[in-house]
């Protein structure tokens, strides 16, 4: 079993108000090659931006969200989250160990993070609309 932190970001498209409401979800898990064995912690963080995200912005958002996770682990994301940049280019910009999703369990973990970030963002937008 290995410890990983699966991360996903939702909200890269501009809202009608011209802002970017971004929610990043980080999930700490223990995984075997084809199964999620245990979920240790979940952390979400919301960000507001006034311009589209660049790779370094994404790195910053992920690092801030992961900083609240107590258990150590390799950060895992989808390649598309980092604009399909080569691994060597992206991993050199992270302080912690980073990789793209590879195994079945890593893909399941990133999918889980995706559901969390997407639903959290929907709740956030609903609340903002009430104000």
């Amino acid at each position, binding site marked *: 079993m290995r410890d990983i932190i699966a991360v996903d970001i939702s909200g890269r498209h501009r809202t009608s108000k011209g802002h970017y409401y971004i929610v990043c979800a980080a999930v700490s898990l223990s995984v075997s090659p084809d199964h999620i064995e245990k979920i240790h912690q979940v952390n979400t963080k919301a960000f507001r931006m006034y311009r589209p995200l660049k790779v370094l912005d994404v790195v910053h958002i992920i690092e801030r969200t992961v900083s609240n996770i107590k258990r150590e682990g390799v950060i895992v994301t989808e390649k598309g989250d980092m604009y399909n*940049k080569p691994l060597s280019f992206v991993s050199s910009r992270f302080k912690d160990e980073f990789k793209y999703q590879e195994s079945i369990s890593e893909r399941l973990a990133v999918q889980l993070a995706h559901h969390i970030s997407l639903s959290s963002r929907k709740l956030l937008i609903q609340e903002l609309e009430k104000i």
Partner: protein
Amino acid sequence: MKKAVLVQRNEPESEEYRNSSRLQELKELAESAGYLVIDEITQTKNPDRNYQIGRGKTDELSWIVAETGADKIIFYNQLSIMQIYNISQTCRCETIDKFHLILEIFATKAKTKRAKYQVELAKLHYELPKAKTIVSLLKKKERPGFMGLGSYEDSYEKDIKNRISRLRNELGRMQKDYDNLRTSRHKKGFSIVALAGYTNAGKSTLFSEMVDENVEVENRLFTTLSPTTRSFQVNGRKLLLTDTVGFIEDLPHWLIDAFKSTLDEIFLADVILLVVDVSEPIEIIKKKLIACHDTLWEQIEDAPIITVLNKVDRISEEDLDCRISEIEYLTPNPIIISASEGTGIETLKKKVFSYLPVWKRKDVQLPISDSGMSIASWLFDEGIVHNIKYTDRIIVDVEARDEVINKAKAVERKLNAYGHSEDQL
């Protein structure tokens, strides 16, 4: 043998070993399709709208084609119809991309009706987005006259869409037959084991070894296109083993869609054997395993995966240990074998057995009568009879799945209650 020139455009900042392994794979694909590769060209740059590679490189390509008399130019990168037209015009040579090449291989390998329909469906999916451009390019040379005016684009596109819809219906009907077959096999107590893995990993060799039968085996990509199923036994349990089409990296979704019914043979199996050629360089093994996980992850339900590390006879023990530890995170339940030498097959069979649904073991007492004998015979067919005793009644020690045991117990009660009377059954 037809001669081909291979062309690959690499993304700037892309990894060198990945680019070279992709070109090597394209070469193997071309050879599988029956081409003799006479030259290879690579260029690192962002894609050119008109030629995919740069204009200067296209001129160099045209010179190579004229010099060598090549019959075909094969690109690794996906080409737009305009790029195909421009390159073919400049080089005076037929130009295709990797996906068209895969379709060519599939077309030659398709033997069953289902495989032929699947290949045609994939071809039509490939052509559909290009339909309008093809017609407008053809219309450039059009002369006035009958059918000379009007919008062919729409009618050509409609024809393709209609054919796609007809093929889908036809494949849907065939799929129902396969689903029924799968259900009836399950009902008869067969557990289904599927072989999955990257193309040329040795699935067909392992298949032959496990079922003790000769199937077509070649050192080529995509030897198997239509699934082949045979039965074999492990510790008295009847299993069906299915050999399937191999995976490949970066398969477009339309090709996966077209072969979905074939891939279902893997996704709906009770146990999946993921075959890996462990004799290849570590980076290639990883790349291929990642491509397999990518194809499998969304589709498989709860079926356990056993990773079969094949071709161990080709590497030293030290190399093997090193590779196993490097790919540990991608290999659930690894088993080491050499299908060609037949080593490790028994261990693999034991491992498969450990993942089969658990059967109950019970004693069934039957009267000595025609009905009792016929139930005993049925138990021999449906389960594993460990022992049978003939006293004043027949005592059968049988191991079988739940439905069989329950049915046997119900019949036992009924036969005993009616005091062996045949007429009342």
